[in-house]
């Protein structure tokens, strides 16, 4: 299996990824990426969402926060593509601005989680011994809280609000990254290039950052993509519970929470934000799964 991949995608002669030049690695990666339908679909949809989020002030026809009493609770129409809520605010504009919020929350939370988690995983795997034990015990404790319970614990401590949700969801995602990086580094430590580097006297720090870290990034990238999807879901969930975005912030989860009381009269209010969440999460999952297929076989070539 590895041979087939080697013939198909790698340049002449199979070699350790570090000795192949960066340009050919990028080329072979892009080739494989664009051939993976899942990754491409996810990337396109995500790209559109990012565009919508960035262009929100331009795309949104109305201000999502300002009430408009004359147009209370009206169904989707030409003026209000997704209808209005009980205060007359345009649901479409709110959904568009919500994209901004959700993407930001997702990216920042995962940024926090991935950074802390990667560092911890790196330290634990590289030094092993009691450093490893302490870090992994800590991770086990965090993992003892199922689902969003850990995020709820941190939001209770920090107080409600979207920025606290980002921190809470970020910390809750640390264990996943720590485990993945630790696993990757533990196996990379056995690699020939590490042995070679050490034999010429490279310091621990240098080996860790120049040799091991770059090669442990692929699973982190996959996990970060998939993790952002989970983070967006968690943040929306916390907002739904009233622990996250506070009114009148147009966050998708918060919108669904408000829509609940008006479900009978305003189905559109409860439908579109949820649809938006689903599409976003689906796109990220597709991208993450695609990336995993593209990046994983490369890991096995080692």
């Amino acid at each position, binding site marked *: 299996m590895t041979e087939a991949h080697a013939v198909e995608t790698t340049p002449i002669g199979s070699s350790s990824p570090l000795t192949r030049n960066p340009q050919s690695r990028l080329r072979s990666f892009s080739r494989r990426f664009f051939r993976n339908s899942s990754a491409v679909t996810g990337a396109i949809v995500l790209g559109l969402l990012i565009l919508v989020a960035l262009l929100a002030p331009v795309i949104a026809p109305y201000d999502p926060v300002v009430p408009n009493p004359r147009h209370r609770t009206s169904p989707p129409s030409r003026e209000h593509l997704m209808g209005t809520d009980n205060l007359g605010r345009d649901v479409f504009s709110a959904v568009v601005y919500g994209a901004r919020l959700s993407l930001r929350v997702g990216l920042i939370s995962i940024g926090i989680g991935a950074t802390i988690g990667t560092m911890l995983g790196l330290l634990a795997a590289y030094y092993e011994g009691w450093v490893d034990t302490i870090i992994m015990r800590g991770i086990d404790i965090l993992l*003892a809280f199922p689902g969003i319970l850990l995020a*709820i614990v941190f939001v209770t401590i920090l107080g409600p609000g979207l920025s606290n949700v980002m921190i809470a969801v970020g910390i809750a995602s640390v264990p996943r990254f720590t485990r993945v990086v630790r696993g990757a580094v533990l196996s990379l430590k056995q690699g020939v290039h590490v042995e070679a580097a050490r034999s010429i006297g490279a310091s621990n720090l240098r080996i860790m950052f120049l040799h091991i870290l770059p090669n442990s990034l692929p699973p982190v990238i996959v996990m970060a993509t998939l993790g952002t999807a989970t983070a967006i879901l968690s943040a929306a969930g916390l907002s739904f519970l009233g622990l996250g975005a506070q009114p009148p912030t147009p966050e998708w989860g918060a919108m669904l929470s408000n829509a609940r009381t008006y479900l009978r009269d305003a189905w559109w209010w409860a439908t579109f934000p949820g649809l938006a969440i689903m599409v976003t999460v689906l796109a990220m999952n597709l991208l993450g799964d695609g990336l995993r297929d593209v990046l994983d076989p490369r890991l096995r070539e080692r």
Partner: protein
Amino acid sequence: MAAYALRRLLAAIPVLLGVSVLVFSMLHLTPGDPATLMLSGGGGGGGGAGASAEAIEELRRSMGLDRPIWKQYLRWISNALRGDLGRSIWSNQTVTSMIAEQLPSTIQLTVAGLSVAVVLGVVLGVVAALRPHSWLDTVTMAFASLGVAMPGFWVGLLLIFFFSLHLGWLPATGSGGFSRLILPAATLGLEASAIIARLVRSSMLEVLRQEFVTTARAKGLREFKVVVHHALRNALIPVVTVVGLQFGALLSGTVIIETVFARQGIGRLAITAINGKDFPVVQGIVLLVATIYVIANLAVDLLYSILDPRIRYS
């Protein structure tokens, strides 16, 4: 076997200890003076902003908040081990009794949700594995992808809209009775069923490729027996771990589902307590749920090691 069980049990103890420390420190990590903080919640009644200085002092004394932190922790944990989780700030009921009132409804929901998830997931996964790359397979896996992407609170609202408001078949909210359990359990189980379906499918595909299945078929056994008795039994082994993990996810998912369907349960109790800054209740619930989860994982590990003896020696 006993050695493995003992090892896992001993490994769980420091984790539970760490969990208890984290839960205990929730109150003390929150910015502000604990007693003032708790009384600012404006929960069940009275209270509200500007609780009197005497009320604050009284709370401080009764909860022992003026003693050194480590003493407070020891007092809290030793009480907890004896089943005393303190009293709610607002209702003055013991936390244990409050939890005991709400827990059955949550357990009911979790078990029902898990059943839905397992039955739906296994059936879909097996069906997809038996006809790989067919339209059935594609539809099933598409459903699995969607199921994971749809937020639980949204699914719940949609189900309420269709089956309750539109069709009038099922009640939308409240607790008690089988009909009130259906929609919440379906919502809760949906996401987990998607995950299980995917895993069952790949696990079954692995197993069906193996020689003993070909042998069973060559022996002339009926296909049903081959699939269920021989293949499925082996394919389900990795699924057991996932089911254990999903149990935890479901347990924490009840927080959202109970809110959507206005159902009794410790999830809703926790949210009310968080908003009211009723820390003893929040801490009691979190401690309980985390402990249940750790024990459930332990049980799943042990079960897995019984089903697949290779694990014990790793």
